[in-house]
């Protein structure tokens, strides 16, 4: 078949020329965060998780103030039961053993302190991690190598061991020192994350453009690159809170964490161990359930955040 030559007439087409009366396509333009918020709202699990988590926050903030029993003033019980009395109207979560504290008061205070530790440690981790990771990823070369080797070495240290050592230095039992220790661990993961994002963003053209315009490195890192890394940072920090809460619970349970003068969900559980064989299940059950609810809420929220902030997902 002969090769066909199309009619060259030019009536249909025009030279590509800016300024022609093109038909604009009208699209609803949404900001990046508005889109993310919309997607988050649609995520049913995320909304449930948020409700759970913020509900617990409210409990932790308001609870100790409105409860009948003050944590520090333990009334002497009228009937002495060594194993503590089970849940009843006056003690909805029952009583502990020996001193017969109100478990509900204990748990509510424990929620407060566990949340405090989790949130502060994660925030610390996020800030330090972003700075270190941002610097390492942006400058690359020796800075990057040295910083990342330090991160790797610190990551190789087992948590329990470090806690043990630190409690010897800082004196065991202070919830603030425990928070700091966790914060010093949390930043490692975030640093690696931010560094990875930096390494890929660094190659983008707008970085060269900014540098050519004379913008200082520090400004480039923090005003231009970090906002793009914000999504994984947010997700990672949120999930980190859950990790710290469970981690604190574990070490307090083992006796290495926060001392008994400040109640955390972990050390409440530690105290309950000895009385289980005497039939006291409520002392261990309620603090644990509180942990489960908080962590579950955080995990649901984190899942929703991850989906909402994922730039690759379709609208």
């Amino acid at each position, binding site marked *: *078949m*002969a*090769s*066909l*030559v*199309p*009619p*060259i*007439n*030019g*009536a*249909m*087409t*025009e*030279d*590509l*020329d800016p300024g*022609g*009366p*093109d*038909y604009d*396509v*009208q*699209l609803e333009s949404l900001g990046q965060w508005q889109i993310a918020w919309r997607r988050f709202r649609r995520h049913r699990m995320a909304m449930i998780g948020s409700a759970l988590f913020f509900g617990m926050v409210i409990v932790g903030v308001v609870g100790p103030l409105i409860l009948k029993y003050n944590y520090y003033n333990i009334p002497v019980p009228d009937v002495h039961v060594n194993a503590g009395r089970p849940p009843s109207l006056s003690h909805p979560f029952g009583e502990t053993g020996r001193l017969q504290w109100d478990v509900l008061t204990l748990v509510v205070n424990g929620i407060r302190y566990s949340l405090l530790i989790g949130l502060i440690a994660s925030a610390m981790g996020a800030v330090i991690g972003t700075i270190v990771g941002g610097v390492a990823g942006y400058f690359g070369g020796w800075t990057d190598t040295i910083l990342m080797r330090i991160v790797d070495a610190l990551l190789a240290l087992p948590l329990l061991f470090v806690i043990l050592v630190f409690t010897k230095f800082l004196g065991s039992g202070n919830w603030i020192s425990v928070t700091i220790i966790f914060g010093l661990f949390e930043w490692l993961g975030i640093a690696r994350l931010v560094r990875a994002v930096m390494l890929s963003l660094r190659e983008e053209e707008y970085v060269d453009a900014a540098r050519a315009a004379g913008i200082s490195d520090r400004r480039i890192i923090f005003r231009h690159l970090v906002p793009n890394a914000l999504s994984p940072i947010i997700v990672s920090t949120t999930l980190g809170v859950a990790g710290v809460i469970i981690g604190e619970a574990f070490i307090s349970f083992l006796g290495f964490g926060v001392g008994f003068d400040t109640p955390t969900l972990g050390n409440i559980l530690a105290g309950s161990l000895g009385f289980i064989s005497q039939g006291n299940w409520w002392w261990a059950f309620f603090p644990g359930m509180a942990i489960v609810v908080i962590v579950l809420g955080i995990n649901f929220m984190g899942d929703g955040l991850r989906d909402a902030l994922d730039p690759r997902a*379709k*609208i």
Partner: protein
Amino acid sequence: MTETVAAPEEAPEPVRRAGVGDVLLDVQDLRTYFHVMDGTVKAVDGVSFSIRKGGRLALVGESGCGKSVTALSIMRLIETPPGEFAGGKILFEGTDLLTMDDRHIRKVRGGEIAMIFQEPMTSLNPVMTVGDQIMEAILIHQGVNKKGAQEIALKALQDVGVADPKRRLKQYPHELSGGMRQRIMIAMALSCNPKLIIADEATTALDVTIQRQILELIKAIQERTGAALLLITHDLGVVAETVDDVAVMYAGRVVETGTVEEVLLHPRMPYTRGLLESIPSQGKRGQRLSAIKGTVPNPFRLPPGCKFEPRCPFGWETCVESEPELITIGRDRSARCWLNDKRFAGRLASYSAPPATEPR
């Protein structure tokens, strides 16, 4: 060429026939919709055409016009949520593929209709040897044992021009070049003697020189086996060399049909003409590139009248208000444009300026 223009009220939706002999594939008013978060996309909205045994038809259009979705719909390879077959029939040898049960459609896939996809890089399973992948189809459709399947596979590889087929059988896809992988895909398609071969942009992802080879190969195979060919492409140059008949698609509808000469030399739908004029060619050397002004319409905001009207320099009020049907212009020739309506013959005259050159 006789010009019979029917009044819009009377003209039935004409069906495109191609090739000689009985009708093999008859697509009637196919509608495939996708339900996404922001609404429903009518990717294919009333497409009809047919192919005869041994016939060769090209479905042409820009990205997003619905041609790939049409091809996938024929094989029912659309995920049904979010997709939906909202209407129409796909008659293959008389049976409607859309209402077939799963067992039978699987027999049709690969056995009677075979598809060659666009991306040879990703269309082959990276962890299976090439031989296993070819033999998989043979074992399903041909009822032979493993040894027999291997022989058929070897022959298929030879037919597509692969040297040293015994060695190739044991190789993995990542060890082969793009052109070689596409030959494997073609071998896979052929191995079960299909009656219809669908090539969905089969050469688009390949180097230009390889494109030519693969096209020649597809042509040669089609001629030798007598299978029908449905070629999906956006490349008009490919169309001219490979098929007899053309159907042009825009915004989910067929907008022009005819033989290759009819459509490419005397396009009766401004969109087709625009496509032809925007092909860079020798005659326009030194000038600026040309393009059809405007952009493909937003699937959620389609204009109420002719879908092409916003970009058409020949349009007038009728075009804005109502969408034309496919108007029959001749035997197996139609165009979805008011210019072809008898009532607007005057406008047709100003549209049909004589073409600059005739083919040799």
